[in-house]
């Protein structure tokens, strides 16, 4: 037994490994020759035309396959719904019978949720970690599974009329923007709820300015003028803070949108240039990028939220 094991490599015996390698090489060669890259270098060797993939024609706005009443349902909305249904169904199936001693599926479920929960607690602390967890976790799951859903082979190949029926929800700018808006509202809500009106002082900071005006009126010119200056700076910093709060929405949106759209185009281009051969490598990359983007989106939301509930606090002490 041990003897046999030692002879194998990557879980296969050597003949199988060699066969796999040869097949992979053949596929690569055929793909290379059939694709435009090989054609332009080697010339047309007369491979059948169904082997080659049409050139991608990326378009950013999502097409609308059909309407429900008067609501245009884009293919990205449809994909988003599939993700939602999938997540809800899986969670429901697992949480229907949660046991203290988990089975395999429950262990995986607990692992993912527990990992995000620990992340929340590490960043925001015990109390706020628990409060932020649902939103942060939902953002993570929605973004990640949207990205991974669109990587299922054949996902974009279902056609309805002239359009694909499904397209990764993250590649429609409306989805990242929607999540960014939710994230923004979530952060501001917790900031206001926790710090009350004090939270707004970060954005509209005129107290120093008015104090300085008072000094000037009372005749304390030198101190008053200095105060006027620093009050003006404070006010300006407040404006910047306000601006950065809104810029977050934009950066959230375009980071996710850009990454996902670029990923999709990359997959299409890879399939176009060398059909069948290098798509899988790009797939691996995209799986990873989907995970990273989900982590970045949820992690930044978490960080902004914990900043919002603690920033004033930190300055006072």
């Amino acid at each position, binding site marked *: 037994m041990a003897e046999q094991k030692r002879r194998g490599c990557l879980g296969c015996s050597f003949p199988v490994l060699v066969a796999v390698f040869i097949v992979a090489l053949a596929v690569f060669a055929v793909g290379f020759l059939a694709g435009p890259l090989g054609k332009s270098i080697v010339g047309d060797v007369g491979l059948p035309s169904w082997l080659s993939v049409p050139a991608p024609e990326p378009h950013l706005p999502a097409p609308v396959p059909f309407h429900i009443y008067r609501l245009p349902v884009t293919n990205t909305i449809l994909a988003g719904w599939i993700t939602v249904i999938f997540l809800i169904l899986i969670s429901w199936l697992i949480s229907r019978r949660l046991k203290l001693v988990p089975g395999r599926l429950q262990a995986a479920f607990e692992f993912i949720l527990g990992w995000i929960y620990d992340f929340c607690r590490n960043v925001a602390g015990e109390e706020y970690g628990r409060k932020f967890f649902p939103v942060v976790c939902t953002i993570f799951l929605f973004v990640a599974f949207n990205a991974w859903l669109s990587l299922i082979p054949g996902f974009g190949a279902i056609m309805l009329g002239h359009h694909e029926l499904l397209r990764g929800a993250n590649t429609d700018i*409306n989805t990242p*923007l929607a*999540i960014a808006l939710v994230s923004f509202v979530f952060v501001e809500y917790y900031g206001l709820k926790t710090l009350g009106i004090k939270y707004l002082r970060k954005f509209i900071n005129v107290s120093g300015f008015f104090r300085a005006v008072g000094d000037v009126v009372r005749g304390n010119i030198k101190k008053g003028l200095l105060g006027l200056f620093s009050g003006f700076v404070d006010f300006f910093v407040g404006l910047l803070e306000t601006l950065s709060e809104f810029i977050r929405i934009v950066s959230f949106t375009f980071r996710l949108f850009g990454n996902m759209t670029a990923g999709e185009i990359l997959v299409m281009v890879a399939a176009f240039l060398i059909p069948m051969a290098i798509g899988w490598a790009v797939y691996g990359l995209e799986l990873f990028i989907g995970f990273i983007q989900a982590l970045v989106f949820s992690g930044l939301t978490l960080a902004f939220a914990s900043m919002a509930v603690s920033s004033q606090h930190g300055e006072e002490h």
Partner: protein
Amino acid sequence: MGGIAELGISVPTLVTQVVTFIILLVVLRFVAYKPFMRLLDERSRRVRESLEQAEAVKAESARAEEEIRKRLEQTGREEQERIARAAQAAEEIRRSAQAEARREADAIISRARVEIQRERDEAIAELRRQFADLTILAAEKVIERSLDRETHRELIEKVLEESTASGKQE
């Protein structure tokens, strides 16, 4: 205006996605997060409880051990006391038995002495009586005639009495 439309931002889609996300959030809250939190809390409660229980059991066993040790010590002490008491009692019994035996022996000895004394006295009396008779008999033989037995006995008794008295004086 063409720039932003080119990106595909459209209000209905945006609103739909926001609603979709919020639906997902709310449903997951009930389907996933709450059960998950309950499970975590339950699990940590269990762990805490079992830890506390283990702690309590440990303390209990330590206390029981201490108790047993104390009791053993006490029993040992009591046992020793009892043994000592028993030894003392035995000693007493021995001593009293000895005293009793000695007393009894003394009594026997003194009784024997009294007896001996009495028998000796009786023997002496007997001897004296026989001796008197013999003496009278001898005297009758000597003087060949019978004397008044009673008168002479008294006389002889008197002589013997005197001789004994004189003998005692010696």
